[in-house]
């Protein structure tokens, strides 16, 4: 091999090496795009709900109501028969089996939906009104095109008769898509078309607030102590080693801590945002302390010395000058720590937040789920409708995380002083 060939070979190696790097970066970026694409394409449809227009006659005699009934009276009335009768008028049925199949085109809570409609529009008493009723999950998925209809009947969850009804209703323009408010306001449910993230939104909110209240002051105080006041001795070293190690301890271990100590020894209520908040704040504490210390360290010593020179005490120089200058970095570190806590699942599972909770929690000591736990719970469900619900929950969760991270970046870029 002569010199030229050798040189060419070396240059080829150079190009190859650079190419590997480029491929790796592209792969990593493609993963991000692919992941986001899968989630969004699956979750998009969950924000819409399929309804069927049904004519309902709110006859007060049939409902055994007085002619100008109050809201309380309507609340107590039984709408089941009225609802069934209105639904059965939609399509001609023969026999109990076909009746049942027609009713199963709709979500099981149709009578409550009709009742709520009347409560909202009281002037419709004694009138014939068109009400949009939620369809069952199977029809919902079929209408959104997520459900293969060309399978043989025995492999389908929808019967041929139901398909007939559906096609007829589509022809009559009675099947509509509306914005799915249920998804944001309802609690968990066994029926995908009624299940919502209302409960887990509140659960996550309470959890994060408790985490913030507990971890933010402690983290700031601890980092001020370690960065500004701590003497160089064994205790300080030990604290620092502890913080660095805790930041890398797997989150599930904190779940065991919560289960063993908070639930076991202190007897705090299970499945509640209170316990979740305490557990997560212990977990986030070291992850906040590390950026807080970095931002305190970034304040140049001249600031401290200037304050000391004009007669301030050490505490005054730190609290009046160093800490205010470090606030942007501190806040952005805290927000990023909280964003991690918001997405954390494993410790919450161990402290019992996987319970099936229908009610929306009103206080931090009510049992509840949280957004990531809801993702886990729904992903275990077999119904097709829960796939889009899970993806949509992930979309909501990710958008919270994106907003939090943007605030953190904005705070740092806008308000942090560059010392040079």
């Amino acid at each position: 091999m002569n010199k030229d060939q050798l040189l060419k070979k070396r240059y080829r190696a150079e190009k190859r090496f650079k190419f590997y790097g480029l491929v790796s970066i592209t792969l990593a970026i493609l993963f991000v795009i692919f992941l986001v694409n899968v989630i969004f394409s699956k979750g998009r449809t969950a924000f819409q709900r399929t309804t069927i227009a049904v004519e309902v006659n709110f006859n007060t005699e049939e409902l055994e109501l007085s002619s100008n009934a109050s809201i309380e009276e309507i609340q107590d009335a039984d709408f089941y028969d009225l609802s069934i009768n209105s639904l059965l008028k939609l399509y001609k049925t023969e026999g109990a089996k076909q009746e049942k199949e027609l009713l199963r085109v709709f979500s099981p809570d149709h009578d409550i939906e009709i009742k709520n409609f009347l409560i909202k529009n009281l002037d419709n008493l004694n009138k014939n009104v068109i009400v949009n009723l939620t369809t069952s999950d199977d029809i919902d998925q079929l209408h959104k095109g997520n459900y293969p209809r060309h399978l043989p009947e025995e492999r389908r969850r929808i019967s041929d008769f139901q398909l007939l009804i559906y096609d007829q209703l589509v022809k009559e323009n009675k099947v509509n898509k509306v914005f799915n408010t249920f998804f944001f306001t309802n609690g968990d449910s066994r029926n995908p078309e009624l299940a919502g993230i209302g409960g887990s939104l509140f659960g996550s909110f309470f959890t994060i607030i408790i985490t913030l209240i507990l971890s933010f002051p402690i983290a700031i105080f601890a980092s001020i102590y370690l960065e500004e006041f701590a003497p160089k001795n064994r205790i300080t070293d030990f604290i620092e080693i502890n913080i660095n190690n805790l930041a890398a301890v797997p989150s599930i271990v904190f779940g065991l801590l919560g289960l063993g100590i908070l639930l076991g020894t202190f007897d705090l209520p299970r499945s509640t945002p209170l316990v979740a908040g305490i557990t997560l704040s212990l977990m986030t504490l070291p992850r906040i302390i590390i950026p807080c210390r970095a931002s305190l360290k970034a304040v140049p010593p001249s600031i401290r010395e200037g304050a000391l020179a004009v007669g301030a005490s050490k505490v005054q120089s730190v609290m009046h000058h160093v800490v205010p200058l470090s606030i942007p970095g501190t806040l952005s570190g805290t927000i990023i720590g909280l964003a991690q806590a918001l997405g954390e699942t494993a410790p919450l599972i161990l402290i019992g937040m996987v319970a099936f909770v229908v009610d929306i929690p009103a206080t931090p000591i009510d049992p509840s789920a949280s957004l990531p736990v809801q993702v886990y719970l729904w992903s275990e469900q077999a119904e097709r409708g829960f796939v889009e619900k899970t993806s949509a929950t992930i979309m909501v969760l990710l958008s919270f995380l994106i907003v939090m991270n943007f605030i953190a970046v904005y705070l740092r870029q806008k308000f942090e002083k560059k010392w040079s």
Partner: protein
Amino acid sequence: MNLAIIVLIVLFSISSFFFARTKVKKIAISNQTKLNALPDYYGFYLSLWCALPALLILIVWTIFEPSIIKAFIFQGISGENAQTYNNSELNLIYQQIKSFHFGYFTGTITEEIIRGAESYKSFLSIAQGSKIVLLATIIIFTTLYALKKILNNNKAREDVEKIFKGLLFVCSLVAILTTIGIIFALLFESIKFFSVINIFDFLFGTSWSPQRAFVRDASTITAEEYADLKNAFGTVPLFAGTAFIALIAMIVAVPIGLFSGIYMAEYANTKVRKYSKPIIEILAGIPTVVYGFFAALTVGPFFREIGEKFGLEVSSESALAAGLVMGVMIIPYISSLSDDVINAVPQSLRDGSYAIGATKSETIKRVVFPAALPGIVGSVLLAVSRAIGETMIVVMAAGLAANLTLNPLESTTTITTQIVMILVGDQEFDSPKTQSAFALGLTLFFATLVLNYIALRVVKKYREKYE
């Protein structure tokens, strides 16, 4: 109730701040004396004395109140009945009494529970009353003490700063307390577990099926039953599964992460760097439950379909799917850490290499990479520790059965999966099955602790070398 007390204390302490400030100013003017500190510090002094001791007592009280009431109730139950209960039965009755008192009890209501609930109620009100009296006296005494000090014109600033520094120190101790709490929680249950199961059988047994372990009373185990139990709690398959999935993750993450780190540090211009680095770091910010969902819903079935085409039997919960997705999750940890590490290598080393005619890739391979190796090894070790502690991906995408296999297409299980599976839902307390989860947690904690410790030491040593 506690919240109301806290609000009251805080309000009182805020008002005492203003009180002390104006009081001190007035005295200074009327007596024509010079104050030893700014008036604000007298305010802080009084309000701190007002609030801190009372809050401290309140916290201690709240922590110990339930267990003391519990002890009283236990005494009541055992005292009035001829029959004796063991500890777990007492616990059950206590829970029933509590839920009856709060009005969400479902089940048969017995005389005992009603009486217990009555005494629970009376204990609660006694505790409530004595707590308020105690707190009120403490606040009055501490406030009077601090007021006297202030009126004597003490050195308020120094005192306040001393208290403040003490507060800072206590806050930094929370990290140590957390570690102690973790070790205590894990050891406490693990010791109970290891008193039933020999630690060597736990660490070296090759069969794991805790659902078979239904023995509740540990003291009366025969040798035969123990042989059965031993076979239920052998953790070798779990360690193997964890290591195997972590290995697959590393095979994905190390080359991709390392090459992207190198490209970003050495080749990329500022524009590429500015956009690609945050995009890759998105991968680190995505919650792991999302990866788990992705692995279970998309990647697992995808591999099974491909396998079917080639006539291979691929489990839909294969180790490959879980490991691959975990690898994707870990890429940013390796890429950003190795990027930092490579940037820390002094430019003079590169310049020396270029000067003798090396190409850029030769410089990287033969000069920069060896120089950065300790830091890169440290970052890989940190990534391994993250992989073995990762929970949600394996819970959702890896299997539950403990197979001792090296086939990536079969399903395996991991330590974290088993912890979750044992502890999810209702647990029976004091059964070896529940305790085994804590023993697994202990092993996991120590494994990651050792890895992190080594990794942090290596990275730190490396940093010192070039600084």
